């Protein structure tokens, strides 16, 4: 926070828990700049070897979908079960496919 009582900018923190896995959102924190955000994220979110890599992104840079449009956005997929392999019956004789 600066003298005027304003908070440092907010950053979203993403951690890669192990090599080969995706970075995953773990939380957020305030920091003056990107380098400090990385340093603080290390102290706050990896005290028990939770990660091997950190990303920080200014929270203001994230655009989110509208929760009010959840049904329009995502419900149509509920009826498209043919997009899943389990929709198709494969004869036992074929074995693993």
């Amino acid at each position, binding site marked *: *926070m*600066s*003298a005027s*009582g*304003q*908070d*440092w900018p*907010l950053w979203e923190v993403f951690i890669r828990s192990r090599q080969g896995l995706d970075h995953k959102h773990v*939380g*957020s*924190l*305030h920091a*003056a*700049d990107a380098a*400090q955000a990385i340093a603080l994220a290390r*102290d*706050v979110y990896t*005290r*028990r070897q939770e990660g091997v890599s950190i990303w920080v992104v200014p929270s203001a840079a994230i655009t*989110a979908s*509208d*929760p*009010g449009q959840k049904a329009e956005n995502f419900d149509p997929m509920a009826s498209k079960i043919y997009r899943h392999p389990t929709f198709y019956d494969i004869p036992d004789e074929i074995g693993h496919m």
Partner: protein
Amino acid sequence: MYTQAMDLDRSATPADATFTSEEQAFNARIARDEKIEPNDWMPESYRSTLIRQISQHAHSEVVGMLPEGGWITRAPSLKRKEILLAKVQDEGGHGLYLYAAAETLGVCRAELIDALHSGRAKYSSIFNYPTLTWADIGMIGWLVDGAAIMNQVPLCRCSYGPYARAMIRICKEESFHQRQGFDIVHTLVRGTPEQRRMAQESLERWWWPTLMMFGPHDKDSTHTAQATAWGIKRITNDDLRQKFVDVTVPQAEYLGLEIPDPELRWNPERGHYDFGPIPWDEFWRVVKGDGPCNKERMAARIQAFEEGRWVREAAAAHAAKARARAAAASVASEEAAA
């Protein structure tokens, strides 16, 4: 608990019987055990209740560093010093997770800190007691963190997503806190007669304040019904307190320590331990600011905040200067290219 002052709030408005369609949809989501997320519609009273509860919880974590912090330099061995340092660092982290969760509700950190420092916001009464001996550090871990876990595990299922997720992370770390505390007490009771006496005296100091952490009796708690309806509170104060007593009494027996309550005995009909009356006068005194360490704790918080001010300002100034330099450099390179 860490948010026990929530139960003392008389201004809580009762739920309105006539719901708007938005409120009806919200209540239906709560009933389906869905998580509410920051950008979802929520009643203003749900939002303000959560801001107060989560920030009280955050303040408790941060003020909770103070009773233990003083023992870091006096820990009896390097091992204990490292463990205590890690625990106190965890508490700071817990405060941060919780402040961040509160901020998703549209309040800024500076406002929350200001509410604490000006005395408008509460924190748990337990941190207004002094840590007189090393045994108190063990007792805080075993009893205070043990009581906190009782309260916090149900909060992992709280209806507000960011709070629930913060609590999951906190509970994982809190288990280390309780075990290291038990380990300190266990070591003391196997030590010299003086060390055993130190542990016993410490238990006598901390037992009743720990039971007070769960807040007033259910019949005196103004907040429980609405908080339960909203899925913020899952188990009542008295039920949690009973659960804590039932779990802790056999642990004290194992340690050979005597709980300072002549009325404490197993009740086979209830299937629970009965225990004596809680000294509520003391509770109210401490909550209202007249505990042994209230003034000292707030003075230490404010001092740390003020003495850190120049660091925060320097970091912000450095970031601003770096941004300005980067902007000037990019203008210069564009001009050079043109």
